[in-house]
């Protein structure tokens, strides 16, 4: 890889050991993918995980004197103060979250603790070169905004924020953004959760490459957020096109950059139904409902508040969201309504964090296959339904 004199100095340690480690990781990634040089970035998002590996690496950079040139927004861990009020947090988990906060503060991150920065304060322009990690963020950036990012890992994105650069390869280059597989959606997408199911079932059929969807009209931001999150969880889909919807797919021809699809697949209502059944635990009594993977938007919170108003929930109901949405929900009275029904709405928190011990071994409902997938490690079972159906289940304490 060809480095500029400044980049070479970063690698050689002139800017400190932390910067040198960051540059070393990026050069290795660049060489793996045949990048010829680095390119400057103007935005970054780090999917901090508040887990040991993530903390170990962030502290390593901080102790090496690294500070971000481009301040990245960051993913949620969990809201320690809120959860200490409702459940037990072990001293080890308290220590990890406190150290994580301290490390990211020290490195100069923008402490948003949200997984949907692309809807709030880290919004790119078309064509902007960025480094985003987080499975729902990367496809949204590339596909919906037409900004450019590779599928960065939390660590490679943090390295990019520190050096202000990323290796020039992959989805930063025009040719790699072209569609490869035509996905004809024959299934009816009735609500945002159907986009989740579409996203979760597509990668197995697609197999590889950039999918180009046809048959999707006027999707909501939440639908697109769900589609990307699940595509990038069930597979490693960094970018997709929707003909007539996303900016690099004004036409079918534009999406494929004038070439023929390498493969064609069809997705039907039956595919979505089968996927839901495969992923879902058996119906019956449930202990809780979990939302916010990715973080819910204000319109999703508003619908839930409308549904639970004046009711008494039979199962715990949890909504994870950004601090902005929580504040907005509070101003609009939704937080009161949800609390009075017995539910929780909490900012800065993720469904896959060690703050849910009281739900281990229990059964829940969720709209998110990603939520059901990652929490297998925490011995939580999920039935998958749309948000309104999940809320209804929480009101009744069981799911049909």
């Amino acid at each position, binding site marked *: 890889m060809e480095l500029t004199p400044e980049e070479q100095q970063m690698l050689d340690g002139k800017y400190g050991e932390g910067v040198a480690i960051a540059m070393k990781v990026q050069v290795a990634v660049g060489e793996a993918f045949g990048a010829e040089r680095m390119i400057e970035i103007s935005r970054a998002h780090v*999917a901090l995980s508040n887990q040991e590996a993530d903390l170990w690496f962030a502290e390593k950079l901080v102790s090496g004197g690294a500070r971000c040139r481009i301040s990245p927004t960051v993913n949620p861990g969990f809201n320690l103060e809120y959860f200490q009020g409702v459940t037990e947090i072990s001293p080890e988990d308290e220590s990890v979250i406190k150290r994580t906060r301290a490390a990211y503060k020290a490195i100069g991150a923008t402490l948003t603790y949200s997984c949907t920065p692309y809807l709030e304060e880290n919004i790119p322009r078309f064509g902007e070169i960025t480094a985003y990690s987080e499975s729902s963020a990367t496809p949204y950036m590339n596909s919906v905004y037409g900004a450019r990012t590779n599928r960065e890992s939390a660590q490679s994105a943090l390295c990019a924020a520190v050096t202000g650069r990323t290796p020039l390869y992959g989805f930063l280059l025009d040719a790699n953004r072209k569609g490869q597989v035509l996905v004809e959606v024959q299934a009816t997408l009735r609500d945002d959760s159907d986009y989740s199911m579409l996203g979760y079932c597509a990668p197995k059929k697609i197999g590889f490459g950039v999918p180009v969807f046809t048959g999707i009209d006027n999707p909501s931001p939440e639908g697109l957020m769900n589609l990307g999150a699940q595509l990038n969880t069930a597979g490693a889909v960094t970018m997709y096109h929707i003909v007539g919807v996303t900016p690099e797919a004004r036409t079918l021809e534009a999406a494929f950059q004038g070439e023929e699809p390498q493969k064609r697949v069809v997705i039907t209502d039956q595919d979505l139904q089968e996927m839901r059944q495969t992923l879902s635990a058996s119906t019956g009594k449930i202990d809780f409902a979990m939302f916010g993977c990715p973080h819910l938007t204000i319109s999703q919170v508003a619908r839930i508040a409308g549904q639970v108003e004046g009711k008494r929930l039979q199962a715990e109901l949890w909504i994870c969201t950004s601090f902005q949405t929580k504040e907005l929900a509070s101003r609009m009275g939704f937080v009161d309504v949800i609390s009075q029904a017995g539910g929780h709405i909490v900012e800065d928190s993720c469904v896959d964090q060690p703050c849910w011990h009281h739900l281990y071994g229990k059964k829940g409902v969720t709209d998110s296959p990603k939520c059901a997938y990652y929490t297998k490690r925490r011995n939580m079972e999920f039935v998958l339904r749309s948000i309104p159906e999940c809320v209804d289940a929480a009101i009744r304490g069981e799911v049909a």
Partner: protein
Amino acid sequence: MSSQAIAMKCHRIAGGKARGEALVSTDDICFYLVDPQNGLVIEKGHALEGQCIAGKVLVFPSGKGSSVVQADGLYQLTMKGTAPKALVIERPDTVMVASAIIMNVPVVDRLDQEFYQTVANGDEIEVDADSELVTILKKQKEEIK
């Protein structure tokens, strides 16, 4: 078949050299869905479900899973001593590559089709990422004989 070692060219992604038993997965890998205590794949419906990846040379198509969990998964496996010794991948992805570099696990790609036709579970193979060579030292089948 001769018992001669078969050496094949590859491309270095993360440096290092390791030797171990081959374990071939037809499905993409998410290290987060491997139990760090014993290295067993716990992902439902996965081609390697219930199999142990600890100490193996893992041969698989690509990484999958969110940008967060891959590094944490591999870190936990490394700390508990249940990580694979080396990775042979067909389609590298950034998350997998960065995780492996940070955890010092050797990774190679760009093996010929011949390698994939020859390699089988239980073969003893050596991955020398620094010299860009993968060598099948002993076929499992011959060992049984």
